[in-house]
């Protein structure tokens, strides 16, 4: 009868156990760990690439019109996120960052929402052209038929040559 690991079992009685005392001694995740999402709302330009790239559709955007511009809210639902980091990779302004915080425990939905709001001002509209543009408009249609006749002649020449 063979008893495997008998010597290791008896000598382990005298050595220190190799357990990490987790709740008493906190531990840091390694470099590059993809944990809780952090959204820097001041860097976002509302291009929507993150929503397009997100595989489980965890990002939603709501727009509210106010007098200053558009109030845009991005909401990241951590209960649907798969932590693949595609949104952070594709963000042009590096507004999304995945931190090293790994302990995400909650009892209802609000614990898992990460939101960020910013206000996007539209650029000012270009000025309306003045009334003196009517003669310029009359000249333009006269020049236009002349311009269209010339390419038509050129096309016929080319066909005869062929």
């Amino acid at each position, binding site marked *: 009868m063979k008893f495997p690991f008998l010597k290791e079992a008896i000598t382990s009685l005298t050595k220190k156990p*190799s357990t990490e005392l987790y709740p008493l001694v906190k531990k840091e995740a390694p470099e590059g760990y993809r944990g809780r999402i952090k959204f820097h709302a001041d860097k976002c330009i509302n291009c929507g690439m993150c929503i397009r790239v997100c595989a489980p559709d965890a990002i939603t955007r709501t727009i509210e019109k106010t007098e200053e511009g558009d109030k845009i809210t991005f909401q990241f639902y951590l209960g649907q996120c798969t932590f693949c980091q595609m949104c952070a990779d594709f963000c042009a302004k590096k507004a999304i960052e995945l931190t090293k915080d790994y302990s995400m425990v909650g009892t209802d939905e609000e614990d898992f929402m990460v939101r960020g709001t910013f206000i996007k001002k539209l650029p000012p509209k270009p000025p309306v052209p003045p009334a003196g543009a009517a003669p310029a408009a009359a000249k333009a249609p006269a020049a236009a038929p002349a311009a269209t006749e010339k390419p038509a002649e050129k096309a016929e020449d080319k066909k005869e040559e062929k």
Partner: protein
Amino acid sequence: MFKKLIEKGIEKSPWLLHINTGSCNGCDIELVSVITPRYDAERMGFKLAGTPRHADIVVVSGPITSQSKERLVRTLAQVPDPKVVVSIGSCPRSCNVFHGSYSVEGPLDRYCDVDVSIAGCPPKPEAIIDGLAKAVEILKTKRRGK
């Protein structure tokens, strides 16, 4: 006086039951690794029970597929009171990447009240230990409120 002893017993010895309703096994591997010597959860009294009748905390992983829906409901009904349901990973919370599929029956909220959720895909074993510690506190309030 007797009630205090029983409460101390519930705090120090919760038994887990693990139900997998069609997950990719990532969360299951992380849950089983909590029992290994490195993150030893047995020092807090956790033990994997073999049958639903022996369990206090039910840990569910995976989006609920059509085939496992009936079995999940029947198994949850066999767990004696007081009990706590913990959903591990983001699949039971909202079906993760599988939402809208023809064979996935939706988040766990539709079938029972979920007391604690642990987010992550898969969550780290330390996060699982945090979630289970929170579940034990909720179990104590359930027992006291009886």
